[in-house]
């Protein structure tokens, strides 16, 4: 279904949803940092900056309680978290690189065991993506087969138009339901031209070729060359729309507390460290190799998808300038570093 919505009506839509108690999450400024956060008013939404963190946290938060426990003598009571805890949510202003990562994550969170923390939020969330009209040279969505107009993952996709407003296209029942439920705010499509899309400077890579190299090069001097620079923080994994590794810990006292899951990263030395002292990935090059392998080989082996959407956040945030786009390009072109 194709429609048109003016900026004014979009704001009205969001404010109406907020008034109804729907959680509306969009890019907004938080003390000088752009983030995807719940809005209290549509006027808070910003459209000109890529949020520092991805949209994955609307489904996979930094930290959440998964149960609580209480001990009394020899008895323990374990209490589940309220299954109705997740509110109806509209995630709006989502960049294509962020939206496309969400269906990629569906695969691992529903692999045999259904992680309802992720999946229930998915069921209750409608995603409104928006095409990118600005990019910087860290962006490389085009290298991984996506684009500033990628609609994958969006229930409703907005394309900014010259003169204001957006062309809207639905890609799911949820998108259609959103329009149907607010039909007075949507008009028939206009003839207005789209604002020119951003042009990331990277050319499309043959990811099958990258994977074929990774299949054969578990051991390779490339890993020492790049990864020696890596200082082993979790910045790249945490701000990545596709990284999903997590830790489970008990926090509280001996008598009562919570079990929580929170973001973790394969870059940390502790990630694979056994209590016995043995660590299969004891040096940083081995840990960094795992990052590249997971994204461009293992996730493909397991789920037929690439675990990267080219948003460029890791490139921008890496303390030591490790550039994943540069790495996969070097692999694909066959030139070692």
């Amino acid at each position, binding site marked *: 279904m194709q429609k048109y919505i003016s900026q004014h009506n979009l704001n009205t839509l969001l404010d109406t949803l907020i008034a109804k108690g729907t959680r509306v999450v969009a890019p907004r400024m*938080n*003390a*000088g*940092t752009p983030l995807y956060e719940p809005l209290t008013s549509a006027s808070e939404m910003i459209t000109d900056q890529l949020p*520092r*963190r991805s949209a994955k946290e609307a489904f996979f938060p*930094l*930290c959440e309680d998964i149960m609580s426990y209480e001990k009394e003598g020899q008895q323990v009571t374990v209490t589940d978290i309220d299954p109705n805890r997740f509110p109806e949510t509209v995630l709006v202003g989502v960049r294509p690189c962020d939206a496309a990562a969400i269906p990629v994550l569906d695969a691992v969170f529903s692999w045999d065991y259904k992680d309802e923390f992720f999946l229930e939020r998915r069921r209750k969330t409608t995603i409104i993506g928006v095409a990118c009209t600005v990019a*910087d*040279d*860290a962006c490389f969505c085009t290298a991984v087969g996506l684009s500033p107009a990628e609609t994958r993952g969006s229930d409703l996709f907005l394309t900014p138009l010259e003169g204001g407003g957006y062309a809207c296209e639905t890609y799911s029942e949820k998108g259609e339901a959103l329009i149907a439920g607010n039909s007075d705010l949507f008009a028939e499509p206009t003839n207005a031209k789209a604002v020119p899309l951003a042009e990331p400077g990277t050319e499309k890579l043959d990811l099958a070729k990258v994977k074929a190299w990774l299949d054969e090069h578990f051991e390779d001097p490339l890993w*020492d060359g790049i*990864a*020696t*620079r890596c*200082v*082993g*923080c*979790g*910045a790249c994994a*945490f*701000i990545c729309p596709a990284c999903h590794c997590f*830790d489970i*810990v008990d*926090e509280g006292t001996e008598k009562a507390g919570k079990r*929580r899951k*929170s*973001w973790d*990263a394969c870059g*940390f*030395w*502790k990630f694979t460290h056994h209590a016995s002292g043995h660590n299969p990935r004891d*040096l*940083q*090059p081995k840990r960094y190799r795992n990052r590249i392998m997971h994204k461009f080989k293992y996730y493909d082996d397991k789920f037929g998808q690439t675990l990267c959407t080219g948003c460029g956040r890791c*490139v921008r*945030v890496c*303390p*030591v*300038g*490790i*550039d994943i*786009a*540069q790495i996969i390009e070097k692999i694909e072109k066959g030139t070692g570093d």
Partner: protein
Amino acid sequence: MTQPIDTSIYSAVTEAIRAEAQRILSAGEVSAIVGYAAARRKGSAQPIVITDAADTAKLIFSASCVNNLAVYLTKAKKDIPKKGRIGIVVKGCDLKALVGLMGESQLKREDLYLIGVPCAGVLASTVQPATELTAETIAPKCTECDTRLPQGCDFVPAQTPATPQLERKYAAEIARLEALTPAERWAYWKEQFAKCIKCYACRQVCPFCFCEQCLCDRNKPQMVETTPRPAGNTAWHIVRAMHLAGRCAGCAECERVCPMDIPLNLLNRKMAKELKELFDYEAGFEVNDKGPLATFTEKDDQSFIK
């Protein structure tokens, strides 16, 4: 009104670094050189470890050379083998960190070949790497710099760096915070620490966080919660600021790398201010055997013992 900063010497500095690096590596005076090279993004730079003299042509110095390379010489980086003398490119701020590490017996001066750079400043983390260096785009730490020409190096290019007089950003912000009530100040820091995602980028780039297993990475006992929640985040940053007090050289890498724009260097600069007032100590180019918080003298103020 943009005030550009003169970085015209940087291309000559680059040439001088390359020539010297080529010389010492070919002559076998060093087995490796840690420096900066250009990266894929326009105007950007990244750390590089060179062992082949042919690769010295890759070395650069520009306003994007933000990294403190000292971190690559600490024992926390076990995967960089340290055989023989290592050459390292250092700005004044980086050199102060190296001096601190020497004082803590982590490095020996004779194992290093210091290539100092005359530095007019580097870019802030908030701007794109290809941005022109101006009073507005310069890193906040550079506004308080007093070490544009590093001392005591084995080689420094002959160029003289520009020394623009800039508004001291940290001093101004510390004064602003000091003027707040404790409740207001606490509210400010609570808001900042609530943003922390526990990525530990601040710790991993810090040359002084060289403990092979960080106290906060242990779970017997669990000193600080690992999950990114406000109370644990606050504890983490306070613990780190205390562990750095009297050691931190002010390279401000922690603040640069924080993905959430937390003004971490404010904490460290405030601690440095306290250390100066209480113990007349500041990080510099003289190797001190022990930092002030690792020593006790009879002259120390004991008025707090009631």
